[in-house]
């Protein structure tokens, strides 16, 4: 076992891990943060997407030891003092989830797109969000929700 430090949503977690433990397993079992989900465990579905040093990462394809000392962000860190943030609110309003299994991964991927601050046209948005699978919504409402937040922050893709 190795002792590592993960700075998750601005809280330091000191956890003991085996090298073979994935980052997402460690977040769920070591840190008690079960918001990030595990689907396929081979990089295909994106349910496990978290931000590592502000970059979207498949949490099932990174070992926790590789994230030692890094800043991790998960769905648990998105809210504004208990209230939905803009992206969560948009998912709610646009009915961008049904069972909710893919939602934490979708939200973290979308967080990266929004925070990047660049204009994103519909094609690019579709392509990036296609990184993650959803078995329920048919994707349209997920795209509408992210689009709404991008438009509100002036990243409407004009000139992109």
């Amino acid at each position: 076992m190795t002792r590592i430090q993960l700075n998750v949503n601005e809280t330091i977690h000191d956890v003991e891990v085996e090298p073979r433990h994935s980052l997402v397993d460690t977040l769920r079992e070591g840190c008690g943060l079960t918001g990030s989900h595990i689907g396929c465990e081979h990089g295909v579905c994106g349910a496990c997407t978290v931000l590592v040093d502000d970059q979207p990462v498949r949490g099932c394809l990174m070992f926790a030891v590789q994230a030692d000392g890094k800043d991790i962000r998960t769905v648990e860190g998105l809210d504004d003092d208990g209230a939905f943030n803009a992206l969560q609110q948009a998912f709610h309003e646009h009915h961008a989830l049904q069972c909710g299994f893919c939602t934490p991964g979708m939200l973290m991927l979308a967080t990266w797109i929004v925070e990047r601050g660049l204009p994103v046209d519909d094609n690019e948005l579709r392509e990036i969000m296609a990184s993650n699978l959803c078995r329920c919504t048919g994707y349209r409402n997920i795209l509408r929700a992210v689009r709404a937040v991008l438009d509100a922050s002036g990243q409407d893709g004009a000139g992109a």
Partner: protein
Amino acid sequence: MKPASFEYVTAESWDAAAASLAEHGDDALILAGGQSLVPVMNFRLAQPAVLVDVNVIPDSAYLQIDGDSLRIGALTRHVRFEAPGIDGPLGRLLPRIAHHIAHLPIRMRGTFGGSLAHADPASEWCTLARTLDAVMIAQSVTGERRIAAADFFHSALATDLADDEVLREVELPALGPDWRCGFAEFNRRAGDFAIVQSVAAIELHEGQIVSARIGVGGATETPQRSGAAEKALLGGAPTSELFAEAAGAAADAIEDFLTDQQANADLRRDLVRVMVLRALEDAVSAG
């Protein structure tokens, strides 16, 4: 599934990585982006006793023009090729290829060297390396070795790299301004590995094709250059008719097609014809 237990070490330099491999023999594997190795470990198809993480090696991710070559550091992430900052036909081709690899979060982790070392039959970078006759620079504790692409790919997921060798750098020829390059691939879902893909590079002089390199990936165990297609193109003008003839020749010349649940040999042959044609058309329109 979860991977089997292993010992985790980090290497601060390629020398240290090579030393680790020498120490542990065939029980150790390099961990680069982890985007192929970790799935394989999660399926327990690989159970290395030791993983040597090379992600912290400084100055190992770069694209650098050096005379007639483009030198690519093994740890250069796929995403870097989407804006390679290189002039000329190769600079225009790299982003068009990179775009087809997996999904963006995977491209942000996965590395050029990892793709070549993994040697999936439908890896875009492997097909590019074979088409342009890249040189792989391998390093072990006993020294350095240059491996030509024609010798590098042995079969699906098997390369010429020895158990104690790391892949440190890859050299591609920096194609001059008279080259036109194109790419095409077919898959059923965005982000999947291609079933068949093709890289086409032709050099034009006064409206005539004076050199041609046609590569095909996904069709056979390893990416191949199509001598038949290249021969058909040489000396001709870049017309749709000639391209169709060359694409047909590429498809007809292949005998050892891969077959799997995605495509049988007939479908792969048809796809080779169409992908080579499209890659050639892409070369003249965007190349």
